């Protein structure tokens, strides 16, 4: 099968809308199709990776643990926008998995290299 470079762009907070969760389902399927999958986290999307998510009170299934499982699917390219973290008072230490923190401009360059960009 042809392998293409897929980048999933996550821009929204994890539980206010379903985009983050359903985007994660796309990531897992793309990995199952053995595509070259990377993820970019921009704007409120950086909150998806925040450590210590507790969703019991809102009765929505939490998915923080799924990020740690991505490695088993060979999904290891996680890029987080530095400016988005800083604007929200966050740093890489606040995130649940190791990521590469890049400037928005550098993430833009990575986007140019992709075959398929899916924005959620």
């Amino acid at each position, binding site marked *: *099968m042809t392998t293409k470079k*897929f980048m999933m762009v996550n821009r929204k907070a994890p539980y206010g809308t379903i*985009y983050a969760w359903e985007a994660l389902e*796309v990531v897992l*399927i*793309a990995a199952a199709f053995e595509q070259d999958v990377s993820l970019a986290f921009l704007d409120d999307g950086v909150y998806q990776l925040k450590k210590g998510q507790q969703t019991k009170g809102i009765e929505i299934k939490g998915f923080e643990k799924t990020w740690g499982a991505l490695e088993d699917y060979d999904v290891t390219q996680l890029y987080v926008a530095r400016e988005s973290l800083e604007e929200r008072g966050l740093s890489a230490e606040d995130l649940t998995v190791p990521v590469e923190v890049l400037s928005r401009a550098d993430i833009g360059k990575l986007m140019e290299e992709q075959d398929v960009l*899916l924005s959620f």
Partner: protein
Amino acid sequence: MKFSILVNEGPYTHQASDTAYQFAKAVLAKGHEIFRIFYYHDGVNNATRLTTPPQDDRNIVARWSKLAEEHKLDMVVCVAAAQRRGIVDEGEMKRNGKDATNLAPGFRISGLGQLIEAGIQSDRLVVFGD
């Protein structure tokens, strides 16, 4: 050029579905090919034949069905997203013990793999969302 289209929003609330439709028509008018149109998130609500907009408004669902018929388009609704939102065909009705179906003509329900395949097979996958 070979295009695929991803529709991530439902009809009427967001313009995304209208824009996707206009884009699809423009692509075909220019003589390009549409490999697949995939409906995800609330986009699956574009596929319910039970929608009844006011007579003086556009019928978004019927419009998609007509386009599919005219151009033999492959319009695929994500099964997991459809199950969450109550979009049901004959197979899903039986599988999940439901008492009705509502999938509009021209649509079919299948898995997310169809979206990834569309990305692989097409020159461009264009996303319409919020």
